[in-house]
């Protein structure tokens, strides 16, 4: 092999080396970009899901106060329904899961101060690691909403209204 030939081969190897370095750089950069973009999308999805779930909960006929049947009172929950809705959601778990997905929904009476909060729905998303022990997921998005709680069980049959906080935590 001549000296010229050897130089030619070294040149080709160098070009190929740089080419592959560039390709590896490109792949690494693309992977990092995709990862960030995926994370961003996941956060966006979780935020949208939180808003959607809160909207659904605020208008659930299973909770809403009604005025003579067809009309509902905005942002108002019927306390009598609140007391029983957890049983219904537990009995019809699959149905309500397809509506509310992974979430924890609680209502706390804040004025006048009430007792324990009503945990009306609790479907925590759990990851199952290698040893099979469930562990709570880290990605959750809580949203809070002020609602009115209506108590119909009063002596003069005139409903009483209280303030409450609706907390909707969604998981991804």
């Amino acid at each position, binding site marked *: 092999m001549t000296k010229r030939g050897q130089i030619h081969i070294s040149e080709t190897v160098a070009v190929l080396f740089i080419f592959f370095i560039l390709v590896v750089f490109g792949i690494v950069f693309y992977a990092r970009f995709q990862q960030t973009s995926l994370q961003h999308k996941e956060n966006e999805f979780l935020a949208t899901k939180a808003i959607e779930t809160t909207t659904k909960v605020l208008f659930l006929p299973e909770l809403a106060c009604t005025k003579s049947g067809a009309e509902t009172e905005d942002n108002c929950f019927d306390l009598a329904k609140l007391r029983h809705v957890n049983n219904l959601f537990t009995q019809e778990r699959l149905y309500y899961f397809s509506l509310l997905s992974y979430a924890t929904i609680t209502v706390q009476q804040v004025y006048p101060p009430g007792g324990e909060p009503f945990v009306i729905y609790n479907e925590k998303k759990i990851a199952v690691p290698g040893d099979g022990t469930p562990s709570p997921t880290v990605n959750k998005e809580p949203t809070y909403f002020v609602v009115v709680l209506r108590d119909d069980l009063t002596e003069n*049959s005139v409903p009483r209204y209280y303030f409450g906080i609706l907390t909707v935590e969604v998981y991804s």
Partner: protein
Amino acid sequence: MTTKKGEFHIVFNWIYILIAGGMILLFFVGIAIKQKAVSEENLQTEIVQLFDSLFTSAGVSEKTKNFIDVSALRDYVFRFECEKGIDYFGIKGNAFQQEEDVVPLFSPEEIQTTQFITWSVPFSKPFKAADLLLVTSNDVRYVFVGDDILTQQALELTTGLTVDSVVDLASLTAEKYSHTRIVDFGGLLVRNGVEVPSSFRTIDEGAISAVTVSLDGRVFYFFNKNDVWKQHSASPLLISSLGEDFPSELLAAFIVQDESRYACSMTKAYKRLKLVTTLYKAKVEDVVNYYTGRPEPTFQTECLGKLTTYAPNIRELLNSLDRAIGSCMDDSTRCGLVSDAAQKLDQHYRDYKEEGCISLY
């Protein structure tokens, strides 16, 4: 001076470069084409998911019509299907379909438009149990035939939709709309075997369909078959309570493709009604316990009687409603029983409320 061997070497090099270059180029072109197809599919999937969000918010905005401008999507055909009580929607030609198994969704089978119209109407039997989500477009023209009170109510309710009102079909012309649905109140002009309006005979058979509503609440669907009206099914939809209030189910019946799609989507509404009824039954027991714990000889005795002991009483009527919903879910031809049971319950509830008793719904 180059030798013969050298010349051959140069030519071979060039051929090699051309083949290798061509293959590399083809590889990248292939990737680009594949990427384009994937992007298109992703875009369509994102559009469908976006529509799911739009439908979610529209579904809870009670009695509200939303006009969604989709001019940029005018090339896409949106397809709506319902199977075993689950609605599916997606873009025609794309395998991805969004599932909707809770909200009852009523729409034509296909929509290609520049503006979607979503409309949420409450479903109350007698208490609100769900919102029926009606989805249509500005490109679907509704023609109400009749001049009775029901027609007037329908006209008032459908403000914002593309609606015409006529008293006979002879003057009806086929306009630029993708579909015309005739709603014949009384069912006198659209009947099986009667000719479709003359202006529609030259255009696509699928561009026109009709719904007839009789005063006893029977709804029939008709389609254009060889320029005559052909009844879609021998058994009608039964929509009770065509009384003072215009039933929201009837609005859904105008919008939806046909009776099978209607029955399929309504399954979800009845399922929800059954669940909400369970809650009202529990609330009645709470009220009964409240009154039982306070046996002062006031109006409470009367309230307790109307709730539990009088014949019929609210507890009993709620159970009847529950049973009626059960039969309706087993056999959709028995759904009229639900309306009857709901009416009876509502009547007794009004009497109960007149006594100043605790509100139930």
